[in-house]
């Protein structure tokens, strides 16, 4: 048993009651979308349509439409893949790791963050799928299925195959975790629909809620399930980016072949993921007027995580530089010398500025509690994290062992188009989610309304923290 501190800022402001929570969150599902929602959806769909055209062209003509050449065989495709997977990690961190640590501030943000995870993983998966060229043969190449070539199996020694298993497991488990969380909230919307006399909506949301009733026994099992899923997701999320980093680290390319990659990639993933959560939540909060649920205190806590992970990433960059010199390996040394001062130095220094220097501004309380500053910095961090992957991938490849094959990478409109495609996909999916699903976990927030809302400040109450 522990006492909730009276010193902490309230997690829910505005003196909300349990009934207010249902009303404030459900009304976005029940009301017609606002004009800004339609505008955002229209922009997303335009991006999606343009991207779809590029994707279809690449599938029809082949991946020669991209700017890849024989020296730089991996570029935007894998950069975008790693970038999107990384973004997904924050959702799992918030819902699983913060659940295990009993951080109750996660409750207002976990739903949207998990939705972001799912859509980001879908976006990530499109890149390796399209890069296969002949997408329809992908099942035989990626999954251990008996095939016409005499049951030749997939190579389980390859990190690329580990990726297939890691990403698909991550996607499935995240989806299940997210859905389990949604079930009680769907039931809330169903019962509101019953009271409002909306028959169709009641039936649809009852189907979605699997006939949820909220009996004490079901809640007990539900909490056991949530706890175990969190326990499973925690090593899972760490394993996913570890395996993604092994796509590089198990090779012998200078600049990739380092043991620092797994922890460095995981920290970078959480860093970029929190930045994306902030970008999305600041918009959602303003659009749906959720200021009482996603408070400045929530934003500040997320910014603190950005300082921590951003600093870890900074230390990793410096360690890489030091080791490339200290190792005495000529090729390793050159790879980093080329990163810092070669033709791609502009991308290296963009990465350094965006990822290492800019998040340090969050040490100043005024900046980390400012919505405008947070929004701008969250976008800068995501630009920086995109450059990180670009730097790692392209600068290590474009100058290989034979100077006669040295070259540069130039993206075509199809490289760019496919990146645009994932943005269209991501934002239209997120907007659909925000319209039809409750964007905040109502059941969880209701459970903390009494103990941490503003009205009860100064009267600490005993809270059982042995269960989450």
């Amino acid at each position, binding site marked *: 048993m522990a006492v909730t501190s009276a010193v902490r800022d309230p997690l829910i402001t505005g003196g909300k009651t349990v009934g207010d929570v249902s009303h404030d969150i459900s009304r976005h599902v029940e009301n017609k979308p606002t004009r800004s929602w339609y505008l955002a959806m229209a922009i997303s769909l335009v991006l999606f349509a343009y991207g779809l055209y590029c994707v279809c062209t690449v599938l029809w003509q082949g991946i020669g439409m991209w700017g890849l050449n024989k020296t730089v065989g991996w570029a935007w495709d894998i950069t975008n893949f790693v970038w999107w997977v990384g973004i997904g990690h924050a959702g799992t961190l918030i819902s699983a790791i913060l659940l295990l640590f009993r951080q109750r501030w996660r409750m207002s943000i976990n739903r949207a963050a998990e939705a972001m995870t799912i859509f980001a993983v879908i976006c990530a998966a499109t890149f390796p799928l399209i890069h296969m060229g002949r997408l329809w043969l992908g099942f035989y190449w990626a999954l251990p299925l008996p095939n016409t070539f005499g049951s030749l199996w997939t190579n389980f020694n390859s990190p690329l195959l580990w990726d297939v298993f890691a990403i698909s497991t991550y996607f499935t488990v995240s989806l299940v975790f997210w859905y389990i969380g949604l079930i009680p909230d769907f039931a809330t919307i169903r019962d509101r629909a019953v009271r409002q006399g909306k028959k169709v909506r009641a039936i649809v949301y009852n189907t979605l809620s699997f006939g949820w009733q909220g009996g004490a026994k079901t809640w007990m099992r*539900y909490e056991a399930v949530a706890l175990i899923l969190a326990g499973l997701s925690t090593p899972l999320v760490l394993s996913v980016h570890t395996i993604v980093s092994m796509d590089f680290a198990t090779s012998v390319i200078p600049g990739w072949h380092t043991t620092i990659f797994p922890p460095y990639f995981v920290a970078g993933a959480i860093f970029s993921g929190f930045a994306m959560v902030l970008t999305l939540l600041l918009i959602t909060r303003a659009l749906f007027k959720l200021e009482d649920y996603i408070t400045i205190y929530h934003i500040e806590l997320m910014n603190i995580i950005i300082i921590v992970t951003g600093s870890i990433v900074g230390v990793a960059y410096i360690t890489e530089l030091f080791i490339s010199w200290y190792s005495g390996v000529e090729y390793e040394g050159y790879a980093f010398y080329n990163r810092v001062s070669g033709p791609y130095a502009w991308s290296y220094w963009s990465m350094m500025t965006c990822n290492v220097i800019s998040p340090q501004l969050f040490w100043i309380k005024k900046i980390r509690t400012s919505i405008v500053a947070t929004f701008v910095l969250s976008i800068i961090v995501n630009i920086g994290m995109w450059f990180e992957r670009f730097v790692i991938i392209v600068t290590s490849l474009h100058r290989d062992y034979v100077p006669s094959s040295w070259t540069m990478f130039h993206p075509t409109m199809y490289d760019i188009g496919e990146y645009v495609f994932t943005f269209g996909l991501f934002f239209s999916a997120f907007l659909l989610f925000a319209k039809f699903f409750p964007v905040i976990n109502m059941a969880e927030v209701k459970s903390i309304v009494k103990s941490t809302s503003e009205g009860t400040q100064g009267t600490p109450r005993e809270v059982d923290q042995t269960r989450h």
Partner: protein
Amino acid sequence: MEANKNYIVGVFEDEDVLLDAVTTVRNSGVKIHEVYSPFPVHGLETALGYKRSRLPIAAFFFGLTGTTLALTMQIWMLGFDWPMIIGGKNFVSLPPFIPVTFELTVLLAALGMVATFMIVSDMKPYKWPQQFDVRSTDDKHVMAIDLATNSGKTTDDLSSLLKKVGASEVNLKSFE
């Protein structure tokens, strides 16, 4: 046709009042059918005398199935069915098999446990629940007492008991 099932339903506003009410009601010898809440109320399962859920045990065995399946699959495919030399390693080299083994363990544990949860809790997409009070997913805690299992008590006894322990409303509800 089966006879109607009659319940007496107490509506509670506050979870702390509810917890005390559950204990008092059970101590006075009344069997509670179930308590429905909009959010998990900690301590309610102990007050109602429920045993700990065994779902974690189920998850463990589903996970174990995943581990076994993944290892068997990889060892059989690369070691026996079609052995190939990859990077000069042994046909069966365990370290590179660990990632896939881990992922399948997690996958089966998660899916198996959630499926078990849905089955034991009788959750189906096409099922319309027996609702004692539609506000129980909004902001009210609802205690349902089955009149058939409490034949020693009259409706008036139960209703005054519920009022005494803090119910804001007491209603009768029957299902066919």
